[in-house]
């Protein structure tokens, strides 16, 4: 898979990422390249390293070894593995959206302020510009009527959509979703997946760790199956779901359908 990761056209490419916590290997050398406009869904059993992998892509987690490239430029560390200055990593992160399982909206800010704070403080837009953009993005996730509410006044599904708007407002080149619907009550999952599907169809590049196989089937260009810190198998949704080549993939999918 190394040659895939080297492709020049990739929005983001990881090469040989490894990570261990206290002697336990979580990532055992993961490589992946995500192309412009592509929707990649990462599936796999819990503990397979999916979340850690996603968090390494924007250096929320520092990999032990391996490189991440954003449009060909190393992210987080230089080519010798030395961490980049904080300001530099921050700038790179601002180009990579991230949506968390637990939303992590800023608790003291309204929905609109949550979305506006990045454009205002990180991108340096004027207050008017930042808030205009925030209202636009809230409308994009169908929450224009909730702009003045604080996170505690919103449902989980609404909070997650605000979080998506917060990521979108930075005009990222890719958005990473870390189990975006796992913390939601079942009846609220659909509204979040709908927004993600709209983004995918609209040409946004995105990578999502998720257990929502229906979403994967409907929206993914490519599905990756991870287990024990490795990408075991990858292919189109049809290939992975209907004709998995690897025993481990088959087992996992069978288990899901039980």
């Amino acid at each position, binding site marked *: 898979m190394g040659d895939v990761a080297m492709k020049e056209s990739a929005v983001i490419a990881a090469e040989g990422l490894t990570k261990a916590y206290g002697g336990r290997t979580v990532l055992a050398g993961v490589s992946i390249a995500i192309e412009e406009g592509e929707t990649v869904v990462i599936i796999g059993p819990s503990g397979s390293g999916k979340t850690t992998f996603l968090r390494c892509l924007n250096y929320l987690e520092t990999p032990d070894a391996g490189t991440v490239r954003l449009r060909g430029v190393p992210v987080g560390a230089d080519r010798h593995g030395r961490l980049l200055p*904080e300001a530099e990593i921050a700038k790179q*992160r601002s180009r990579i959206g*991230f949506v968390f399982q637990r939303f992590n909206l800023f608790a003291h800010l309204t929905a609109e302020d949550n979305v506006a704070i990045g454009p205002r*403080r990180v991108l340096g837009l004027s207050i008017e510009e930042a808030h205009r953009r925030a209202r636009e993005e809230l409308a994009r996730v169908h929450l224009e009527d909730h702009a003045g509410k604080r996170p505690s006044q919103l449902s989980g599904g609404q909070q997650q959509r605000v979080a998506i708007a917060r*990521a979108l407002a930075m005009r990222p080149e890719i958005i990473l979703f870390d189990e975006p619907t796992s913390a939601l009550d079942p009846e609220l999952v659909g509204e979040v997946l709908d927004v993600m599907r709209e983004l995918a169809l609209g040409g946004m590049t995105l990578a999502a760790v998720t257990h929502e196989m229906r979403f994967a089937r409907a929206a993914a260009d490519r599905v990756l199956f991870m287990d024990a810190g490795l990408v075991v198998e990858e292919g189109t949704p049809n290939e992975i779901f209907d004709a998995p080549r690897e025993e481990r993939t088959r087992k996992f999918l069978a288990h899901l359908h039980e």
Partner: protein
Amino acid sequence: MVFDWGLVGKSIPLLATGLMMTLKICALAIVFGTILGGLLGLASLSRLKAVRWAVMAYVDFIRGTPLLIQIFLVYFALPVVGINLPEFWAGVIALSLNAAGFIAEIVRAGVGSIEKGQSEAARSIGMRHAQILFYILLPQSLRAVVPPTTNELITLVKGSALLSVISVYELTRAGQAIIAVHFAPLEIFLLIAIFYYVTISILAWLSRWLERRLPVW
């Protein structure tokens, strides 16, 4: 033993003079202590290990030694290095330094109590350490920081009684002066206690008022 009501009446204006001094010193120490404590608290959240350690050592020293000894150190040790301070300022400085140590720890703990997801989300949109601190963590920590801080400031006012040992003519010292002349410790110490009690009750009321105005979310 007869309770000397006449002396009580005569003492009130004298003690009021002492109280004014206590209020002046405490007001200054509250301002300096809060500012310094806030700054040290921020420093304890620095990305630089050396800075964090320096603050930790300072907080450790302040918490690990009696206020009385800290007052003596400021009053007697500073002249040795060529800094001569009148008792008044030695008192203000000692109380400020003491409160600052405790407030620094309150700020550090308050910011530390905020869920990790908040700063992760801020990092994910490209905010830097200082921005995360000022725009995300500090505003959210107010609710955790203000109540123990006002509590600490009340402790500061009570601690100011110790300044009597370096001859600052504050409330306690003023009372001791009366006792030295009239030898009526019961009357005077009771009066002093009432003066402190009223002062601190007002402060406690103010702090509750402030706490009620803290934002909820």
